[in-house]
Structures are given as structure tokens and as C-alpha cells.
């Protein structure tokens, strides 16, 4: 198939940025979206031009590195699918595809489609863990956990930290990301001990990083490639309120 690509180019955070337009003639159904970009970059390099910078690594939908907005949607048009798992059979001959970086105040642009998501790491560092040192653990079967409860914790824990939720949100809020980690640990007995402190610290860090407020648009849930549920945000809000009251 033949495609027209409108791709955001930006040298660095200080640069204003603009769209470049490219034509690709030999795209096939079985290519992944990133392989399509590989083909484009191969052409650019053979013409001694600067290739489009984009982040990627595992290319199997789990590392969370790939991050781009395709035709207005983070990770493109397929539900619960990362960009690397999106295949070109989803598009048709003659399509024009617009490709932009994840845009948010807390994700400064590094180059083209590459953004800085280190704010996510700092949110986890503020409390997204259980304080247990190596060697302190009791037997794994000492704490039985109800199967359904464990599955719920797992569902929240499958967040890949890609930042699509932030890019989808009109306010650039990181509530879905933060609440997924809060919920994962809150749903397990091991995580209960530090629960109040954790939720306060993580929410405060999230605010300090410049992420926006949540106004319940639900866009984050729609665009999340791992189907992380909005329920997590509700759970975190309740917990945060409870923890704040208890702290005073």
C-alpha cells in the first residue's frame, strides 16, 4: 500500500517543531507500525538525511518504550494495543497518517517522537514499593490470598509505564498510572502496612512533577494499551482522602 506520513520533527526541547511529510510506496499488511517506520528511516539514511527518532525496544508490547500519537490517538487506532503491536493491515492504501509525540507538560520532548518520562520513575520512587529487604521474607505460601483479589492486583500491576494515559488526558494527568501502582499494592495484604503513607507520597510527587488534575474524562482508560481500569483512580481517590484525614 501507499501511504502519506505527517511526522512531527523537533530537534530538541527548545526547538519549535514542525511536521514533515513523507511518501511510502511499499508498505505491506504484515508489517508492524514500527517496521513501517524502519523502512522510512532506511530510505532517509540512504539519502543521507536525519532519520525520525522514536523510542522502541521489546517490540512485543510489554516494555512500554514505544510512545507516539497516531492520528490523534496514543498508540493508534487499535484498542489495548501498543504501537509496536499495531500492524499495517489496520490501515489502507492511500491513507494519510499523522504521527506525533506524547504531549504533556511533564513529558518534555527530547527529539522528534522521543519524550522524557523520568517523572514516572520519581513517582514510583516516592512510594511505589513494599519496604522489604532481601532475605526478610517468610514462606511464599504463608499468606493465602484470595484468587480473585490476587487477579485484581495483577490486573493493576500490568501497567507498562508507557504514559499513554497522560498523553490521552486533556489535562495531562498521571492519575491512571499512579493509581494502578497504588491499587496493585493496596489490593494485597503485603502492601497494607504502608498504604496510607504510600498514597499520600505518590500523589504529592505526581503533583510536584507537573501532571494535571483528573476531571474524569476517562480518555486514559480508553487509550491504555493494557486495559487498566478507571476503578483504580476511584480507589486511589478514596484512599488519598482517607489518608489525608487520618494524617491530620
Amino acid at each position, binding site marked *: 500500500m501507499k501511504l502519506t506520513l505527517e511526522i512531527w520533527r523537533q530537534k*530538541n526541547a527548545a526547538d519549535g517543531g514542525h511536521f514533515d511529510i513523507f511518501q511510502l510506496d511499499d508498505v505491506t*499488511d*504484515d*508489517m*508492524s507500525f514500527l*517496521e513501517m517506520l*524502519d523502512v522510512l*528511516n*532506511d530510505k532517509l*539514511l*540512504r539519502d*543521507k538525511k*536525519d532519520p525520525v*527518532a522514536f523510542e*522502541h*525496544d*521489546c*517490540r*512485543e508490547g*510489554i*516494555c*512500554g*518504550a514505544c510512545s507516539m500519537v497516531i492520528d490523534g490517538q496514543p498508540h493508534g487506532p487499535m484498542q489495548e*494495543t501498543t504501537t509496536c*503491536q*499495531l*500492524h499495517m*493491515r489496520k490501515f489502507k492504501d492511500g491513507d494519510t497518517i499523522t504521527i506525533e509525540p506524547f504531549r504533556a507538560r511533564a513529558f518534555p520532548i*527530547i*527529539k522528534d517522537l*522521543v519524550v522524557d*518520562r*523520568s517523572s*514516572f*520513575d520519581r513517582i*514510583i*520512587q516516592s512510594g*511505589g*514499593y*513494599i*519496604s*522489604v*529487604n*532481601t*532475605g526478610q*521474607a*517468610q514462606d*511464599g*505460601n504463608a499468606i*493465602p*490470598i484470595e*484468587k480473585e483479589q*490476587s487477579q485484581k492486583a*495483577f490486573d493493576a*500491576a*500490568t501497567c*507498562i*509505564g508507557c504514559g499513554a494515559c497522560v498523553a490521552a488526558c486533556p489535562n495531562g494527568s498521571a492519575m491512571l498510572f499512579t493509581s494502578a501502582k497504588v491499587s496493585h499494592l493496596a489490593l*494485597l495484604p*503485603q502492601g497494607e502496612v504502608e498504604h496510607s503513607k504510600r498514597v499520600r507520597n505518590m500523589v504529592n510527587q505526581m503533583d510536584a512533577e507537573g501532571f494535571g488534575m483528573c476531571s474524569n474524562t476517562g480518555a486514559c482508560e480508553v487509550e491504555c494499551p493494557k486495559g487498566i481500569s478507571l476503578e483504580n483512580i476511584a480507589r486511589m481517590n478514596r484512599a488519598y482522602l482517607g489518608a489525608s484525614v487520618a494524617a491530620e
Partner: protein
Amino acid sequence: MALNNKVPAGPLTEKWTNYRSKMNLVAPNNKRRLDVIVVGTGLAGASAASTLGELGYNVKCFCFHDSPRRAHSVAAQGGINAAKNYQNDGDSVYRLFYDTIKGGDYRSREANVHRLAEVSVNIIDQAVAQGVPFAREYGGLLANRSFGGVQVSRTFYARGQTGQQLLLGAYSSLSRQISTGNVEMHNRHEMLDIVKIDGIARGIITRNLLTGEIERHAAHAVVLATGGYGNVFYLSTNAMGSNVTAAWRAHKRGAYFANPCYTQIHPTCIPVSGHYQSKLTLMSESLRNDGRVWVPKRMEDVIAIREGKLSPVDIAEENRDYYLERRYPAFGNLVPRDVASRAAKVACDEGFGVNKAGLAVYLDFEAAIERYGKAEALSQGIANPNGEVKKLGTEVVAAKYGNLFDMYAKITGEDPYKTPMKIFPAVHYTMGGLWVDYNLETNVQGLFAVGEANFSDHGANRLGASALMQGLADGYFVLPYTIGQFLSTQIREPKISTDTPEFAEAEQNVKSTQEKLLAIQGNTPVEDFHRRLGLIVWEYCGMSRNAEGLKKGRKDIAALREEFWSDVFIPGTSSEFNPELDKATRVADLIELGELMMVDALDRNESCGGHFREEYKTEEGEAKRDDENYTYVSAWEHTGVGADPQLHKEELVFENVELKTRSYK
């Protein structure tokens, strides 16, 4: 130099306990004065860095990703082994030890493997305490499943995302240590050289991938946790960024590289679809618990399938060759990976491959859907379930493997619930790596290697669900002790300065290599060379090898190296964000490694595990070892690019296990 593996004396089952009880310790006040560098943040690196931080050392940790959480351990699907015997099915530390030694085709070190089996149980406890949401039974206790090469259920799992969950556990521990200041984290930094002072590893040179700045970092000891080298094949299940550079630079500074020819070809991956293909996707080994592998018996069916005139579901049972069940009745579809991969190759070499390229076999869930459906109907009390069985069975299979089936459907556009999956072997893991002794220390003093980066405990073939086990065993429960043996001798050593001639030389080495690469300004992109390297290594050092091919392969790679250094095109400069430059550095090292793999495979005149030499096989076509002449670890010393490396042998001594022909029949 003679290789001293430093395995302690005494009975196998007591070695680790006794050694640990008597080893030198570093007092807390001294730990605070000692600096340790950890490169890599996968399971081995993150667990090592966080545990060393907890112990009180000053840790500096490095990764080339934007976040430690993206290391490729995250992609491991199936599970992690541990000798818990929670299933009461006869498992034990000894059995896990024995299975691993046998699975590795008797080419691993007994003492290391036994220690691995011993600490495996602690890993599960640790992960549960961190909040890793393993699969559970209705009673709330941990669930298990089976993997290839074993007859017990000892694999713990978190749906198809076990690696992700374990990595996030290690990452959370690491994050906690970063927040307390015990670990100083450097994201987007790539290690490009190691610095030795008076023969001891004292630091590294890194490139800040955002700014291009070349930095010096010093420490009392350096730990490499930088993963395997499967990307030498270009197409593999590794991530695009996975590379050998850190290990290779250490090798060029004197660390021996062991058993590079031992590479694991995983039997169940999604086949290649076209020339643009950038990576291959694994379908977890856990699928072989329920999936049956087959090809058509009749050539006319194969041809009709390739032409799109026949669907595999229309082929009658008697016209299907379930070749694994036929050839290996004792283990059936759950034979180890090397055996399953070679069997698929044999089927395709004979012309029975079922996709257009003739390079695919079926992995079929019809029987499992039927079996689960009937069981489910029975438990739900449905009297006449005929119409319901398929639906109920599909639901059970979806609950077990849903995410894998979805992934398959996204990539291929086909529905694996309705037609069997098409699969083919792909490069997945590398058993070879930096040579280490019992302390996980390389032959360079103060330089340690953990996880897939070392030549490890898997011998010539790794069993499923053992990579996660080894990475975490090394990082949580082995290295934090054994590094003390070395560091206890360093307590009088003041802070290591980066202002030394050795650091200056290493920094200059890195800078001049980069400038040399950028100055070429040839016509061919880096990726092009990488693809061609992959084709050569796959052709001559892939699923099967022979002497003639290996000689040719080495020549071809040498020619490719020449071409690379005269025709590669890299845009931009070294003092900016430049992914093409980063890639070129990695590919240059992979090319050199490819040559070493050919040399190693040619030296080993036997077949064992993942190393199958066509000249050495039984009448039935199985791997034929030569225990008399090749029961050794090949540790190679670098003597210059393109020059013949020097072989050092570590003889493997088996005191507890009798060397047998590995049989899964």
C-alpha cells in the same frame, strides 16, 4: 593463566551453606565506604543493585533505557522455577539440580547449579513479599505449571507476564534504594569501556545517550548485568536494544568469554513474515502444556495448505504427524527446547513446513479445548454438553493463555482459537557469556558478571523458566554474599579517583572509536550490516553447524567487518542524542563476537544441547556428545580483532551426577 573456579571443597549439598558461613564479611561501617558499580537493570542487575544498596554499599547503577523498568527481562512470559514442591509431586532441590544439569547436556558446573536450586525457594518468598501477584489456586495458595524437560510442576507464573511482574518487583526494590540514596541511578547511560587499575576493575566509561557526554565513573568493584548476545542473529526474541557491548568491552580488556557457541533456539515463535522483519515474537513454552505440535503426514496436504486450498482443521487425525509425541513418548510435546527446535527443523527440512516459505509447524489447541470443555461441562453439571464443549473449552484456554493468543492474532491476523498457530524456532537466549568462578567473579579481579551476561548455570541448553530463576538468584542471593569475599580485601582502599592515566586512556579509546565511526560517512545504514550479520550467523552457526560452514562463516563475517568499517553511514555528531551512533557501536561489537562464535563452535567437535554439529549425531539424528574430549568450558581470551583467540579450558568435574546420554524418549 590457569582457570581457578574456586568451587569450595566438601559434599555438594553443603558447599554453599558452609562457604557462606565462613566467608569474609564487610562490617557495616566499611560498607558505607565502598563503592560498587552495577551495569544493567534487568532481573539480575536490579536485584543486585537493590540488595547491595540494602546492605549499605554505595551503589551506582546504569542502564541505557529511559527507565530501569524497560530491561528486556520484562518480556519473559512463562514463569520461574523453584524447588518448593508445593504440588507434592516429588520435587526437591536435588531434582531441580539434576534436571538442570541434564537439561544443560552435562556442560555446566555442578556446584553452581546446586546452589541455584537451593536458593530458588528463597526467590519465590522474596517476590511474594514484594507484592509480585503470582497465579493462585482457589484456596489462596500459589499455583504451578509444567515446563519442558521436567516431569514435575515447579513453575510459578503470573499469567503470561511473569518476567514483567518479577522485574517490576526488583524495580520497586531498586526504586526504594534510589529514594533512600543508597543507589545513584543513571538512566540513558551506556557503558562503553571498563577501566582496570593494577589489574583490578575500578570503573567504567559511559556515554550519556541524551547529550553524548563521555563520563568516567569509579568504584571498588564493577558488576555487569548486561544480558545476552542473541541479537548477533539480528532476528531474535531479544529487544531491539539488547546488545553485547558491555560484556564485549570487558572481554577486550581481558575478561574471558565462555562458550559463545551455546545459543538457545526457542521452538515456539511466530514465523518470519517478510524482509522488513525486525524481531521475532515468542509464544511461551507454557503453551506446550496444552498445545500439540504437528505437520501433515502427506505431502499433497502440505502443498494444498501452502496454496491456500486446504485448512489445517480439515486434515483428519490419522493424516497428522504429531512428531514430538511420536519420537519422544516419555516427554511428548514437553521435550526441552533444543530437542523441540531441532525436530521442527527436521520436519521442515523434509519439506513438511506449512507456511509459504516452508518454515513453520502447527501448534494445535483443539484437543485441549475439547478436554477442558468436557471437564468444565461436567463440573457445571451440564448433562448433554455437545454444543457447549467448544465454547466452554475455549473459555478455559483463554483464561490460561489469553494474552498470548491475542498477541498472536495481532501479529498474524489469524485466530488461534479456530485454526492452529503456526510456529517456528527462533533465537531466544544465550547460555554463553563472560566466564565467572563460583563467586561470579570474572578472571579480571573485581569484575563480576551476573544473569544472562555470565556463562552461567545452564550448560549447553537452558530449561524453560530457569532464566528468571538464575537472574534473581545471582542478584538477590549469590552476588551480594560473594562480592564480599573481594570487597573485604578492599576496606583500606580509599575512594577510587577517576583522575588517573587508566581512566584517561579508556576515555580516549571510547572517543576515538566514536570519531572513527562517524568519519566513515559511507553509504550503508547500520541496520543493513546488522541484518547481514544475522543471516551469516544463522546460516552457519544456527540450529545446526558443520566445520566447513563455520570456516566460511568466519570468513564472511571478517569481510563484513571490513565493509562495515569502510562503508557504514552514521548521521549527526557524537555530542548529541544520536541513536544511529549508539546502534553502530553495538553492531561493531556484535560483528566481532560473531567471529568468536564461529571459532568456538568449530573447536567443539561434538554435539551438545544448543550446539548441534552435523558431523556428530547418533543414527537417530540426536546430539552425540564426546565426554572424553569435550567435558570442559571453553574460555576464550581476546588477542586482537580478527586474530585467533586463545583457548583456556575449565575441566568440568562431575562427582555427583553420572554422565548419560540425554534421553527424552
